[in-house]
């Protein structure tokens, strides 16, 4: 399968790979997907007291498109407020990476990972 240059770039040089301390009250962790389906994404965000995402890290088990989708959203998330972050749509990810139809689910998973990380943060902070 032919990948777009952007997917290849993120796959070869993934941005923001790693982990944040999941017990830190400022860190939200989202883990979505399932090994049997071939994709698992872990996305973590670190949010300042005034609600701005200061840092984002990911680890992804999945195809090149899944790795690229999660790498891309870590770049997009930094500097955004939680409200802005929750507005990131899978269609924007798919468009940016020129994902073919069979890989759209990778961008859906990345959107789910953002929502899951935000929900985790909010439940931690009792909001």
């Amino acid at each position, binding site marked *: 399968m032919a990948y777009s240059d952007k997917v290849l770039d993120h796959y070869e040089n993934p941005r923001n*790979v790693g982990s944040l301390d999941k017990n830190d009250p400022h860190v939200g962790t989202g883990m979505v997907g399932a090994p049997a389906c071939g994709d698992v994404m872990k996305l973590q965000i670190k949010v300042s007291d005034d609600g701005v995402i200061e840092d984002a890290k990911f680890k992804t088990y999945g195809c090149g498109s899944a790795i690229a989708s999660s790498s891309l959203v870590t770049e997009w998330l930094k500097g955004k407020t939680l409200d802005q972050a929750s507005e990131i749509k899978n269609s924007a990810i798919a468009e940016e990476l020129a994902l073919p139809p069979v890989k759209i689910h990778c961008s859906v998973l990345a959107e789910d990972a953002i929502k899951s990380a935000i929900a985790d943060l909010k439940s931690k902070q009792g909001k």
Partner: protein
Amino acid sequence: MERKPIYLDYSATTPIDPRVAEKMIPYITEHFGNPASRSHSFGWTAEKAVEEAREEVAKLVNADPREIVWTSGATESNNLAIKGASHFYSTKGKHVLTIATEHKAVIDAVRELEREGFTATYLEPEPNGLVDLEKFKKAIRPDTVLASVMLVNNEIGVIQDIEALGNICREEKVIFHVDAAQATGKVDIDLEKLPVDLMSFSAHKTYGPKGIGALYVRRKPRIRIEAQMHGGGHERGMRSGTLATHQIVGMGEAFRIARLEMKLENERIRKLRDKLLQGLQSIEEVYVNGDLTHRIPHNLNISFNYVEGESLIMAVKDIAVSSGSACTSASLEPSYVLRALGRSDELAHSSIRFSIGRFTTEADVDFTIQLLKDKIQKLRELSPLWEMFKDGIDISKVEWAAH
């Protein structure tokens, strides 16, 4: 110019040996006659070449040349054998026995028989890929007309005990077909001794050309098959169609070279495979798929745990290998062969089949080991599953939200 990847996919196809190509060429140009033309020397020359090639194919497997029928390849041979014999002997019964890990050309031919009203059993092999003789015997029914078992598996390279399986078939009076597409030049085949009625061969897995194969049809006791291709009555009516002289010459020469060189070649390949295996086993969490003892030296099928299959294939694009995962469709389909061995979807997806051949060098193997070490490490640094495994979390016990 971009460098070509290192070819480690000899089980998919082999290059034509230059000696084979050289022998084929005159039969494309000057000796172009139709081997069925009986009235002039063009035909006689072509016919002589076809019969010499037939002898070479027969010699490799210790058969009578009159037992060799030319086909377009192993897929056609499998279809002709399975459907042809089952049709011919259908008055005896309408049940066919095969193995779940057979090649699609066998599985789908049996499925076609099912559509025609036959019933079929797809016996599961043991976790090492080998067929249990007792289970095989029990799966035979009074109405079983034919059993089909491959000699060497294309994905995992395991060698079935064809002699024992054939003896069971003889006792039960069941016709025994063997797909030997992956076996020629790799394991000794002696059809004078082996209790096999029908055997399929392919040229292009043994350094011959694509588009040509053969079916062995036993004469004593005689096995009858119904033709699937009707026409000029070539190949004693079993397979009509003008013979492709140059392809046949190529297959004959390829099988001749295999007969003369296979012993030395297999020793060399075994050393390379052992080196590759040793190198890859220095990586944590790798699993060899299929029995290592009853196996051709050319094949190594390994699963790399906690790494996803498609990203793995992307990572190793400097080598040409096969993946256990077909990711071309929206639904990921793990290899049905590995699934039949009881491998999890994850391990089936993250498998690579390395197949070594005549032109593989030690430098190729060294490069491959280093590439895999580097790339597996890189992908595992990216993998949340690897992180969980390292933290001592049992991933099979995690409740995943299916999507």
